[in-house]
């Protein structure tokens, strides 16, 4: 029932991108996002597509799988497209009732929709190729310098790790309780809004209770093993930056450099 959610899902293929240093991957993704906003014409998108496609090919994650991640965002992309197509002033191409479509509107609509699509595809490639643990590890390292100004880097990373760790557990639990209540004749799918909301009580109460119980047990288990935050903590697997990381980083830098040049030139 709830197994279709792909956000934040890791897709292990063991490719070169999977083996990269998560810190470098996060930085490159950040560069990629910035460069998407540097682009101001379709020629710039050629560079972006080339970068994205080669990254996807190297990662060995099926393109269809990445496209599937776009589904829940289709509504958002659709609305952006509509607003741009109807709300941009300029030379009128044609008219439907009170709505006018302008040449600039068409251009802007496609441009914005593509930007969103590339944004989602690029960032989902990060989560698809990086295990949640590696991801939070990378974030912790990147945030480390900000510790001096009071950013609790380790605590943030630990909270994220725990939250990510419990997403599948909670989904499983929800699925199980839902099934148990359906077996007792509960109905989650029909009726009006109020009766549906009421129908969720048999699901939410047990879910809350088990979440609190789990949180309690986890805290106890961590304390029993002397957990006391990030101070002096060492790691079993130290993050290492290798040749391919520097290569990828230079490709990312090249991308943004090309796009800046492109923006100034045209």
């Amino acid at each position, binding site marked *: 029932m709830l*197994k279709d959610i792909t956000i934040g899902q890791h897709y292990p293929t063991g490719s070169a991108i999977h083996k990269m240093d998560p810190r470098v991957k996060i930085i490159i993704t950040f560069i990629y996002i910035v460069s998407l906003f540097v682009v101001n014409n379709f020629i710039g998108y050629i560079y972006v597509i080339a970068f994205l496609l080669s990254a996807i090919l190297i990662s060995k994650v099926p393109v269809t799988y990445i496209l599937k991640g776009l589904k829940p965002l289709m509504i958002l992309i659709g609305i952006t497209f509509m607003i741009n197509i109807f709300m941009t002033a300029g030379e009128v191409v044609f008219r439907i009732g009170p709505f006018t479509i302008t040449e600039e509107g068409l251009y802007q609509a496609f441009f914005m929709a593509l930007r969103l699509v590339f944004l989602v595809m690029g960032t989902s490639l990060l989560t698809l190729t990086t295990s949640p643990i590696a991801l939070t590890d990378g974030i912790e390292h990147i945030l480390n310098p900000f510790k001096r100004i009071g950013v609790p880097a380790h605590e943030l990373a630990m909270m994220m790790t725990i939250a990510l760790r419990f997403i599948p557990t909670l989904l499983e*639990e929800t699925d*199980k309780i839902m*099934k*148990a209540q359906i*077996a007792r*004749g*509960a109905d989650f799918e029909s009726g009006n809004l109020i009766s549906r909301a009421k129908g969720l009580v048999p699901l939410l109460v047990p879910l809350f*209770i088990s979440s609190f119980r789990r949180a309690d047990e986890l805290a106890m288990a961590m304390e029993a093993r002397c957990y006391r935050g990030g101070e002096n903590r060492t790691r079993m697997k130290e993050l290492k930056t290798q040749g391919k990381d520097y290569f990828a980083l230079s490709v990312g830098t090249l991308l943004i450099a090309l796009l800046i040049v492109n923006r100034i030139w045209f």
Partner: protein
Amino acid sequence: MSIKIENVTYIYNPKSPFETKALDGINIEIADGEFIGLIGHTGSGKSTLIQHLNGLIKPTSGKITVGDLVITGEKVKLADLRKKVGLVFQYPEHQLFEETVYKDIAFGPKNLNLSESEIDERVRESMELVKLDFESLKERSPFELSGGQRRRVAIAGVLAMKPDILILDEPTAGLDPRGRDEILEQIKYLHDKYQNTVILVSHSMEDIAKLVDRIIVMHGGKIELQGFPREVFKQSKRLESIGLGIPQITHLMEKLKKVDGSIQEEVLTVEEAKVEILRWIRSNKDA
């Protein structure tokens, strides 16, 4: 009510790297009023299989008939099926949510749209069946009860729907030996009283051996063995190879038989073993 499972296969997460075949060409026939023990190791597919019987998951391929209803067919009213097939999940106490024991047990019957008086009667009856005192417990919160009591409240919640087929997924998991024996006794009592079809899922041979009419052993999504308990336990080597044992007492008798061939090893309970050993001692004295 009878159950017929034909060639059922179920695949989790199809077309992704996490694809797993949970059931692989299952064929089972269960007659009306039979008491079935479904045994298998964790991950053998037994929980997946029983969820099919309630229409909670649909098989990837294959056909399931419950009574005269083909539940894998088009446009089946699953609500009707769920009235007939009661499913008690593993750790059923995790599904409790109401403020009082009474309300929680009444949840199922209420969903069947029964009258108030009928619901009241069913709650009393099912609490009595699981040996919970109605007067002293009905107004208590289920969350203040002990683990064993909570589990019985949850089982009563399913019994109150009066299912023709009762399926219990590891009803004794996590209980102490006394709680375990009590629950098993009550299930046996229920079966004897109503002659309904019962499927008891477990990974413990000890639990199942003395209760059930027939055992179905699952392994890796397939049926490994099925038959009467005595027949199944004869295959102790095969059972051990898939990580299941035979009851300790049967094991002991097997060893005794190796010492003296005249001992019968087909024994399921300590009581039977006592009789058999006494018989053997007497026959030796006579000789």
